[in-house]
């Protein structure tokens, strides 16, 4: 059933384009072209996170980390395998995609961990990154309660993700 959602929306959009006499072919080509820039800007972050994750896992640091931090996450119902995504998600969105891809290969894309991971990645953005970029045109240097509120809201999103994927 859910597999129909995307195709139906896209067909609807194309029909709307015909009604509005928009050249959808040209629009699509122009849009697709901008994917070059996007993939070039995100690649360095993805590469950095993948390499860091390899070091993190192979050095045994991930086990130490897991033993220290995971119990807190598990207390709120977030599985220990997803605790790294929840933390990294605050700093870099592309980087958390790298972790999600690792979850897909290890546990399969239809596993509970993969679905909950998708939810966590899909429900929020990197608060540190967004703050740095969005205030870049202002003189503001005191962000007051912005970062703590952003992190807390993301954490609540992660808790809800972990629970909701157990139910549906």
């Amino acid at each position, binding site marked *: 059933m*859910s*597999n129909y959602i*995307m195709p139906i929306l896209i067909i609807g*959009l194309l029909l709307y*384009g015909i009604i*509005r006499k928009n050249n959808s072919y040209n*629009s*699509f080509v122009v*849009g697709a072209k901008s*994917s070059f820039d*996007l993939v070039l800007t995100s*690649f360095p972050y*993805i*590469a950095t996170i*993948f*390499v*860091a994750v*390899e*070091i993190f896992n*192979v*050095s045994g*640091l991930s086990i130490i980390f897991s033993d220290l931090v995971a119990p807190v996450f598990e207390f709120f119902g977030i599985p220990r395998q997803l605790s790294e995504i929840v933390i990294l998600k605050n700093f870099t*969105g592309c980087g958390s995609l*790298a972790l999600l*891809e690792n979850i*897909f290969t290890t546990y*399969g894309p*239809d596993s509970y961990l993969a679905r909950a991971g*998708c*939810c*966590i990645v*899909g*429900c*929020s*953005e*990197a608060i540190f990154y*967004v703050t740095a*970029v*969005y*205030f*870049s*045109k*202002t*003189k*503001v240097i*005191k*962000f*007051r*309660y*912005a970062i703590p509120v*952003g992190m*807390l*809201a*993301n954490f*609540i*999103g992660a808790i*809800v*993700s972990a629970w*909701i994927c157990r139910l*549906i």
Partner: protein
Amino acid sequence: MGFGLLMINNVDLAMSSLLSGGGKAISLSLKLWGIYAVWLGILKIVEDTELDKKLAKLLSPVIRLLLGKVDKETENQVAVNITSNLLGMGNASTPSGINAIAGLDRGSRYATSAMIMILILNSTSLQLLPTTVIGLRTMAGSATPADIIIPTLIATVASTLSGVLLVKLFSKIFKDKP
């Protein structure tokens, strides 16, 4: 520190794991490139048919409720900003977000509660369709890649709602500084 530990623990694995990280990054980026090409193409159709402007118009009462009194230009920027988030146009939302916050700038060192509200709306990003994640799941061979739409929607509403309420609460406790 991690690298130091790695060198001591497992010298043989050190180089090969570094390079395998780089290799994985390339294969993920290629997948993402495909997904971005499709979705940025589709979103450009949304933009050119001015469907996003229609959505933005529907949002203006909500924006007034969240931000209080702001000028028309800022309101428009925030509307575009939220709409692009809703449609999963994360990167398209950045310029409008920057402009919206710049429009509220008073030259002060301190962020106002309206600025923080815009920021939190973006960081908790209310997304209707998590297109990138669905694309990655499809490519990984999932049988029902889109079945995360509803759970993600519930989670994103929860995080946005708690973010908005927290900002409202904190803006009552800590008054804006000059």
